[in-house]
């Protein structure tokens, strides 16, 4: 564990130093992420302003779902999602071999190399949005906060599992940057209150592709709309993580190259 933390600390130091070489680019990239993450909430705000609304959801409640989603991305993206880019470029170039030769598990190395400090910008936009959304709802009880904290861990685990699936896919679907579009499309469902979807779709988004667990379930817990029963999501997230790890390692076996 100590070694793992030392690895992360070293990577964070190097990546930050790297970003400081292009400071304006770093600042713009962070700004982009902040603006980018606020686009969907802006759309929601404009639609509510026009008099329409999600039935049973006030503006602040709907924004809370989106804020939780952005916050979860703010943690999952810098630490896990960079591995998708690493796999994409290194498998295409044939330099993934270098990761296999290092004295640490290849999955960990892919995550470490993919660490991206820019993505912490999402935490900023998520926090601002979260604060704004909370200002318009009844102050949650401490039990709701506890449920939310546990479910938030589950949502990060689900995002981590998704990064493993997408990264693993790139060992076969070499060099396709469309995996990011696929992620954006699939998680589009997770940015909105789950009740707007049909029953069948709600079941799919909860039990088959647990995208609803990323933001809708934790936000509902914080709003006091779901009981302790929703904590089953923790088990579901853990299972998905295990399947993700298994899938990634299995797909790694498909990697072939002719040396660097």
């Amino acid at each position, binding site marked *: 564990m100590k070694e793992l933390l030392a690895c992360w600390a070293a990577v964070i130091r190097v990546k930050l130093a790297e970003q400081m070489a*292009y400071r*304006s*680019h*770093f*600042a*713009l*990239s962070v*700004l*982009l992420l902040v*603006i*980018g993450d606020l*686009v*969907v909430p*802006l*759309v929601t705000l*404009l*639609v509510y*302003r*026009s*008099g*329409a*609304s*999600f*039935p049973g959801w006030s503006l602040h409640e709907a924004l809370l779902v989106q804020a939780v989603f952005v916050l979860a991305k703010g943690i999952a993206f810098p630490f896990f999602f960079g591995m998708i880019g690493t796999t994409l470029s290194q498998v295409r170039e044939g330099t993934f071999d270098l990761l296999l030769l290092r004295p640490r598990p290849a999955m960990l190395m892919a995550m470490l190399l993919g660490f991206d400090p820019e993505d912490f910008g999402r935490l900023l936009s998520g926090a601002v949005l979260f604060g704004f959304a909370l200002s318009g709802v009844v102050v949650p009880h401490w039990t709701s906060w506890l449920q939310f904290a546990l479910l938030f861990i589950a949502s990060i685990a689900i995002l981590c599992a998704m990064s493993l699936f997408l990264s693993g896919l790139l060992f076969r*679907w070499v060099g*396709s*940057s*469309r995996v990011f*579009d*696929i992620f*954006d*499309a*699939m998680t*589009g*469902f997770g940015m*909105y209150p789950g009740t*707007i*979807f*049909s029953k069948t*779709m709600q079941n799919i988004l909860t039990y088959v592709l647990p995208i609803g667990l990323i933001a809708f379930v934790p936000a509902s817990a914080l709003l006091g709309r779901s009981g302790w029963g929703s904590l089953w999501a923790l088990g579901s997230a853990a299972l998905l993580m295990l399947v993700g790890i298994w899938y990634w390692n299995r797909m790694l076996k498909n990697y072939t190259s002719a040396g660097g």
Partner: protein
Amino acid sequence: MKRQLAMIRAIGFVTYKEWAAFRSHMLASLLVGPVLFLVQVFIWQAMFEGKETINGLTFAQMLTYFGVSTLIHYISFDFADWNLQMLVRSGKFVTFALRPMPHWLFALAQKLGHRSLALGVEVLPVLLLFLFLFQVNLMPASPGWALLSIVLSFFMNFFINYCVGLTAFWLVRAEGVRRVFLLLKDVCAGVFLPLSFFPEVVQKLLFFLPFQFITYLPTRVYIGEYELAGIRLSLAEAVGLQALAVLITAGLTLALYHAALKRFTGVGV
């Protein structure tokens, strides 16, 4: 002129063949497009509950708006900005500076080839999915004006993106600028929401910016009525305005291109 057309055709054909080797890249749109559209269907179904119209659009018109804007996005999709910035940053642009053809024309020819492939691989299948799976009304109100407007949108998107790519001649690392600009472009073009949802003051500003001509205007022309910031135009007026905007943007792009070339220095490759 005839020689240049032959060159454009040859470059377009080579690009077509090159990208045909990576068909699965484009085929991903068959999943991405309909899934994103499905999200919109659920959102607006919920929003329209108990309402006939929102901001003057019916539920059917709203779905048509998002369906058409998705298809226009596929038709006019462009990455000239990324390509040009990569060439400048890597120094490979020097090979283009020596060719008997301006790079902007080369990039346009590449786009023609790339998007020709997309017509069969992306646009047509997604169109059929929208028609038969989602049963969206995709019948243009006036096919002639709609087609002309989409063609103009194709050029508008190219010129704007090329201008963004040209920033690489002035900035050391222009990727951040490019990404910020492209996001704002999509917001201001009406990709995420019809521009009529924006506050009146913002609508007035958006009317004078070139971005509405990429998505919002062609989509509204396709539907058969155009209105922004309280300004209502006939289809002919709207497309005429779009053509004028494309001409002005093309002129600005050429001026910027010549200014950029004066800044360029390259040392062998």
